[in-house]
Structure formats: structure tokens, C-alpha cells
């Protein structure tokens, strides 16, 4: 039987990396995107757990780069059907899984302007397992309706679409998305949090099953891999993140 650390021994980032790795199980090729240390960590953990069967591309990495034809190659993989999973965040995400990476207020003169849509308006259509990920679970992020659709959660039947939302992961919970009903449902709530807390902090309606399980924490062995190995691998691209979350590993290195 696995040895499980106490919940308060586990950092939120470590839990999120663990959940993301679980969601990638069975994938052959996955990639993380820009500004994505936790998804990048999840990919690297999933590769470790796959025993090397999974190919992982960490955008911006030298050690974990699989592209030899320039940055466009990632998008070519997606269109070729080779890329099994990718990650998208969003300043706003709404109940129909639409994502806004552009800003708040009237476009183009937004009141608050975010960086921009990156590859979302393409990859969301073509990657089967798009994992939505935010480190903030509040009503200002999870809104009834986004101000700008960087990329839509679902498409009309005539639109070529082999990909879309597969799961949503936040510091409070994990959700799934029903494409036909265009609606999220609660999958599990992380230890220390409640269904009420999730509902209070979500600005759209979600389906809640009668029994909502608690998210399974990483076991001791997984936590050791994250702290001793994944921490160093992710530090290559995200030194500031690694110094904040894994100070022990960074100091030892």
C-alpha cells in the first residue's frame, strides 16, 4: 500500500502537477505552452510515470525540446493529429468553456489588457485533451460569459474540430466538460475545500453529482519525484517559479 503524506505537507503546486499528470495518462505526445510552469511540471511527471513511453515538449526548453523545424512545428503536430494534449488558461473562462486571453471591456480598447490569444484559437480545435488550468479560482476568472472569445469551447457541427476541453483544474477542484450539454461538472474537490466553496467562487452553473469525491493526493513516492527531479527539470525554463515553490531543491542544486 502506498504511503501518503499528510495534506498539509503538500504544496498546492505539487497537487496540481500530480492531477495534471494523471490527466495525461496514455498520451503519446504532449506539450506545455508559454508561461506554464505547472502544466510543464505535470507533463514531465507524466513522462516519468509512463516509463519513457510519452514524448514531452516543454515550450521554451532546450533539454525538453522536440522541435527541429521552428516554433511552427507544434502547430503542425496538432493539425496532423499527433499532439494528444495541451494546456490553456485564461483571464476569463465561462460556463460554455469559452476562453478570454485578450482583456476586459470593449475590444480593442480594453479596460484591462492581457497579453493575447497565443495559439488558443487553433489548438483548442485540434488537440483532443485540452486541459484548462488556472491558479486562481474566483468569480472574476470563472464568469457567466467572457468579454472576448479568444477561442470557443464548442463549435457548430460543420466546423472541423477534433479537439476541445477535456478537464479543468484549479486550486479548489477538478471539473469535466460535457460537449453536448455545453456544461461543466464537478469531478472532485481537493482536500481542505468544499463543494460550497467551489460553487461560491464559480460564476457559472455547474453540474454537481450527489457524491463528490475528494481529490486523491500524491503519494510519498510521487512527491519525492516532484521535489527531487521534476523541480530541477522545470527550473531550466522557469527559474523564478522553481525558486519560489522548490527552495530546498534549488538550494541543494
Amino acid at each position, binding site marked *: 500500500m502506498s504511503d501518503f503524506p499528510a495534506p498539509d505537507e503538500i504544496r498546492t503546486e505539487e497537487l496540481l502537477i500530480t492531477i495534471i499528470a494523471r490527466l495525461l495518462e496514455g498520451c503519446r505526445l504532449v506539450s506545455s505552452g508559454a508561461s506554464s510552469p505547472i502544466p510543464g511540471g505535470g507533463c514531465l511527471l507524466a513522462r516519468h510515470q509512463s516509463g519513457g513511453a510519452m514524448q514531452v515538449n516543454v515550450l521554451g526548453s532546450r533539454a525538453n525540446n522536440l522541435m527541429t523545424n521552428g516554433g511552427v512545428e507544434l502547430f503542425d503536430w496538432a493539425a496532423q493529429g499527433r499532439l494528444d494534449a495541451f494546456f490553456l488558461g485564461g483571464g476569463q473562462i465561462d460556463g460554455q468553456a469559452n476562453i478570454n486571453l485578450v482583456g476586459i471591456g470593449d475590444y480593442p480598447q480594453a479596460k484591462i489588457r492581457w497579453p493575447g490569444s497565443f495559439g488558443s484559437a487553433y489548438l483548442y480545435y485540434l488537440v483532443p485533451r485540452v486541459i484548462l488550468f488556472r491558479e486562481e479560482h474566483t468569480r472574476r476568472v470563472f464568469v457567466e460569459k467572457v468579454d472576448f*472569445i479568444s477561442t470557443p469551447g464548442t463549435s457548430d457541427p*460543420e466546423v472541423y474540430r477534433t479537439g476541445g476541453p477535456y478537464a479543468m483544474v484549479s486550486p479548489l477542484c477538478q471539473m469535466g466538460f460535457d460537449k453536448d450539454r455545453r456544461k461543466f461538472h464537478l469531478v472532485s474537490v481537493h482536500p481542505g475545500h468544499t463543494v460550497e466553496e467551489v460553487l461560491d467562487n464559480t460564476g457559472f452553473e455547474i453540474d454537481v453529482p450527489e457524491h463528490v469525491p475528494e481529490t486523491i493526493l500524491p503519494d510519498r513516492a510521487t512527491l519525492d519525484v516532484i521535489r527531487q527531479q521534476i523541480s530541477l527539470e522545470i527550473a531550466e525554463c522557469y527559474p523564478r517559479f522553481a525558486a519560489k515553490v522548490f527552495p530546498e531543491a534549488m538550494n541543494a542544486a
Partner: protein
Amino acid sequence: MTGIVHDSVDSLAALIPDGAKIVVPADYTGIAMELTRAMVRRGVRDLYMVCLPVTGLQGDMLIGAGAVKTIETSAVTLGEFGGAPRFQAAIGDGSLKIKDATCPAIHAGIQAGQKGIPYMPLRGMIGSDVLANRDDWKVAQNPFSDEEDPIVLLPAIRPDFALIHAKKADRHGNVYIGIRREVMALAGASRQTLVTVEEIVDGNLLRDDATAAGTLPALYVGGVAEARKGAWPLAFWDEYPADEAHMTSYVAAARSPEGFQDYLDQFVTGDARAAAAE
């Protein structure tokens, strides 16, 4: 006669007229920051700036200096250092025209430019507000399908200048780019490529297979100049990391127009740059 190798980065910057259409790569490809500073010193105006596919400090600095009229990009961000302050301010006050895109759409437009064809079709985008706000993009029926199959068509992008920083060039103007193949697309689509390099080397990079496969041939190159630590304060390939302390101080300074102007006075028009970059 001025050869392909220029004596100074400022002499390269002088080639770029007001109103030029430029294309720049993402930070991991190699950013010509010293050339960017020279463009600000020259006071270039009304640029149409295309980013393949995103920009960071380079775009923020040019926008803050009033050099950019229109930007076509998939994102402007300083990455781990946060949002781009002068970009956000210029969007807020309406002084910058933005053509929001998605990364592969800019790649596709540049590839069409590289191939000399009028447009490139691309999946995705249908139903997004990115597409809804681009009246220069079209949706057409896939002519090879019997079923209803709409697909987006992106017009070719043909910039006047591609601007990059690379590790080395020879005196013929051949430039070593290594694995950064997007430079071939940028250079092919653009009328000419202006390059700064860490060093100018003897010999000919095209004569040896080991370097030739990763070399941008001089035929694409409009001018090259040596700029040691020319990407500073950004990271450059495996050569040097980002200057974190400087990036943090830039972000703080650029929060206000006055702070940004002080920054330019010190590190762009002033002489604090050489000491800081060492």
C-alpha cells in the same frame, strides 16, 4: 561602398525608414535588442510591427518610444516578469492599433510570404472573436470537399525587414542560426533581413555541412553588424541568461511614462547600457 557588414548597429538602424513593415521573432529565437535601442535613438516612427508569433520587451520598448503605429501579434508579454506596461498603456489610450492574431495564423501568413503565394489556409479560429475582428482574413469552403467544410484563409505577410540577433556571421553575410528554423521563414517572407551577431568570424559558413544546415545564406541579408551581448537584457540561446535584475527594474520604471522616459535616457540614449550589460 558600404558592404554587407556594417561598422555599427546605428548604421543598420538607419536603413529602416519611417512607416516600414518589420517582423520580429519570439524571444527564444534571438532578439536584436541593441538594434532596437538604435531604432529608438534614431527616432523611427509609424512602424507596422509583425511578431512571429509574439513579442516581449522589444515590442514594449518600441511601443513606449512611440515607434509603432500598428502591431500584429498573438501576444505581448514579459513572461515571468509580468505584463508589458507600455503596450497595455497604449491599448488603453487607443494610441496603438492592434491586429490580434493566433500564433499559427502569423506563421501561416509568413509561410505564404516565404512561398510567394497569396494566402495559406489554416484550421481553427472559426467562431472566435479573433477571427471576427480580422476583416483581412477570409473564410472559404474547402474546394476539395463535397461536404460543408469552412476553412480560414490568411493573406501572405511580406515585411520590408526581418530583424534578428544571432550567434555569428561570416564576412560574406552568411548568418549562423542553428536550430532556429523560423528565421528561414522570416527571412524568406521579408524583402531583407537585418542581423546583429555576437561575433563576425573568418571563413565561409556555407562551406561546411556542420554549419551550412543551420545557416541563413547572405542572399536574404540586407546588413549585419556585430553587437556583443546584443540581446541583453533578454536571454540569448545558450549564450547568456536574462538579466533578471534589469528586467525587474524595467518593469518598475515602465509603469509610468515618466519612468519609461528616464529608462530610455539612461539605457538607450544614455551611456549606462555598456556598463550594465557586462
